[in-house]
């Protein structure tokens, strides 16, 4: 028994876990080793960071432009962002997430290998310990045929929080007032019990002044709800998919007024109709957005309402029509 030594050994043992042996070349002609190695990492990856008992979802896209690699990442929170550094050498991928984004004293340096179909690696966690992470190739989520819509389901009964749970233990701080669910401000997330794959969602929202919330589709993709993000990029505005898709056209901000979303999500393609006006038309969501419950994109997931960061936001008439 040597539990006291575990932390030390994590750092050592995981860094050196095998590189993939699958790209073994035949003698008669193959691309240079470096190019082969880099290609193995190109694409979209659904990441899971493991720290203590916690798992944090993340997302990474690596593109090759000429001889250069470029990486976009969604971390444990916040928006998709371009990373300052990504390199592949000796079959090892290294990318850096700046400390300012991570609430960390130093930049988080991710190092990983391809192992079979997964990426596995380590990163210096912001808590001073070494975290492990794994990545799987993000599924395409392509749709071959038009969906057949099922019966509409009311997710909110207008009276109480039956069928909803908060993301932290203890008594709920969300309340039901006048047939609407009201966020307390600085609160936890409100997560529906049921999981869906493809669906049409009708939801009405009323966003107070200077507030920020959102509706997460499959618990992974946030459709923004806000009245305070004028200074930020368009995808952070109401009607956008946070960090990825801009609402076009953008509707004027109307605090304290009931508005509607009619959202269709099929695979990774989303259409968002705000107050009867199409603001996002059948566009692809590249990956999870900050605050996602997990990064397992192939799986069904719940509707979740973001506990407003500041201010209050209310939701009502939440009706989902799942694809059968």
């Amino acid at each position: 028994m040597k539990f006291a030594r575990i932390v030390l050994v994590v750092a050592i043992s995981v860094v050196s876990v095998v590189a993939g042996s699958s790209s073994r070349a035949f003698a008669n002609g193959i691309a240079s080793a470096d190019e082969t190695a880099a290609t193995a990492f190109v694409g979209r990856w659904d990441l899971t960071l493991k720290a203590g008992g916690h798992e944090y979802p993340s997302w990474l896209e690596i593109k090759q432009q000429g001889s250069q690699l470029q990486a976009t990442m969604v971390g444990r929170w916040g928006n998709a962002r371009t990373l300052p550094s990504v390199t592949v050498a000796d079959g090892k991928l290294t990318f850096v997430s700046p400390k300012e984004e991570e609430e960390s004293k130093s930049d988080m340096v991710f190092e990983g290998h391809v192992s079979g179909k997964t990426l596995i690696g380590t990163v210096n966690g912001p808590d001073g310990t070494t975290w492990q992470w794994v990545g799987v190739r993000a599924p395409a989520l392509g749709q071959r045929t038009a969906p057949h819509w099922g019966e509409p389901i009311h997710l909110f009964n207008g009276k109480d929080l039956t069928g909803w749970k908060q993301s932290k233990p203890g008594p709920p701080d969300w309340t039901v007032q006048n047939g609407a669910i009201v966020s307390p401000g600085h609160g936890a997330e409100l997560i529906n019990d049921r999981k869906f794959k493809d669906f049409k969602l009708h939801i009405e929202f009323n966003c107070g002044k200077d507030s920020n919330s959102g509706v997460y589709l499959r618990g992974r993709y946030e459709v923004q709800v806000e009245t305070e993000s004028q200074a930020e990029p368009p995808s952070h505005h109401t009607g956008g998919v946070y960090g990825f898709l801009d609402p076009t056209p953008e509707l004027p901000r109307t605090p304290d007024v009931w508005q509607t979303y009619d959202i269709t999500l099929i695979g990774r393609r989303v259409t968002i109709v705000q107050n009867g006006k199409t603001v996002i038309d059948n566009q692809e969501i590249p990956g999870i957005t900050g605050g996602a419950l997990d990064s397992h994109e192939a799986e069904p997931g719940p509707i979740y309402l973001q506990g407003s960061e500041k201010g209050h936001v209310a939701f009502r008439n939440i009706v989902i029509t799942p694809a059968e």
Partner: protein
Amino acid sequence: MGKDHFSRREFLQASAGVTGAALAGNSMFLHADPVPSAAQAVAASDRIRFGIVGVGMEGSGLLTNAIQLRGVECVAAADLYDGRHELAKEIVGKPIRTTRRYQELLDSKDIDAIVIAVPDHWHKQVVVDALAAGKDVYCEKPMSHNPADGLAMVAAQKKTDRIVQIGAQRTSSVLCAKAKELYEQGAIGELNLVEATLGRNDPTGAWEYPPPPDLSPATLDWDTWQGTAPKKPFDPLSFARWRCWKEYGTGVAGDLLVHLISGMQFVLGINEVPKRVMASGGIYRWKDGRNMPDVHPVIFEYGDIPVYMRLSLGCESAEVTRFQGSKGMIELREFSVTYIPQAGVDLAPSYYTASYPARLREAYVKEWHEKHDPVPGQEPAPQTVTFNGNDYDDLRPHLWKFFEAVRSRKPVVQDTVFGHHAALACHLANESYFRKAPVFWDEQSETIKQLT
């Protein structure tokens, strides 16, 4: 989502020491059978009450983990050092009986099981006494301090229907179970070598532990602690750093090699003594008066298979066990098991033909490609697979297996026979080191003999 999202706030609270709730997520890791926690209520009649003998570094970890298990309760603790009576109460968080005399725990009718984490030279006596008193027993590794102790413990268990489980956690690890499954499925073909390494390079890793500052003949029953060892004046270093000396411990073999051996026995389904053992090594790094080696490489033969295990306290290196066979390798590490398949065939014309003149080489290469080039789309592409999982030294699954067996009365994997074989391999490794010669276990005389 904005700059103050709950996920960020929750993380900051958690890092500040306030418990935050984890957002649920499906794991891509190997999951152990769930170990139910103490939070779930169990009827009083179904509760197992245990006493712990020895609340030192290892014992305190066992105690902390055991009381978190469902339906498991600590009612008493014995230790020869009074400071650990205080410690045991701190860990359990409610009043429990404490004593210097472990015999009092064995006499207690309300105790079902005894968890033993005393120095190696005391294992046999406490285990034999506990079994005689009708208790089920969990005993730290290595099971025995010497071969004779091991034989006595096996005999003592045979006389009873009590559960005994030895504390090398890997037989309860999902990672080792996955390695075992791969091996039994023939993933690596014919096994032809097992190798393992483990290295540390720091005083604590080399057992230079700081003795408790209040340790004295007043707070410690020094006479009893010495047990079977030759008597000497009170020495706090012997107490804290007993692993350094053969009079009390079994060195790096009994502390660490036993984990590698137990894991290997489990994965390969071996439950026997190695045929031959040859060890080398010395005291290179920690010249603090110890008499056990700090560098200790050992070659065993299990049946016909060579097993090469290198232990060192003189240089840090990753802990890994590799099972090597004709079709590839299984690599077992603390948090992962990796299967690395090998085609076992030439993937290109033999480079020996560089020694042919061009006309012969070209003809050979042409023919080779005709015969061996894969059909497009059917190239052999062996895929390395890694399974991640909880630390294979995690105590909880192993403790849970023990307490489950106490409840169900079903036998455990790591009983006294299994534990005796693993410990005996370590005694052989130590004996070979001291004799500077290959040794074997002589079944007839039940002693270790030198190969001549």
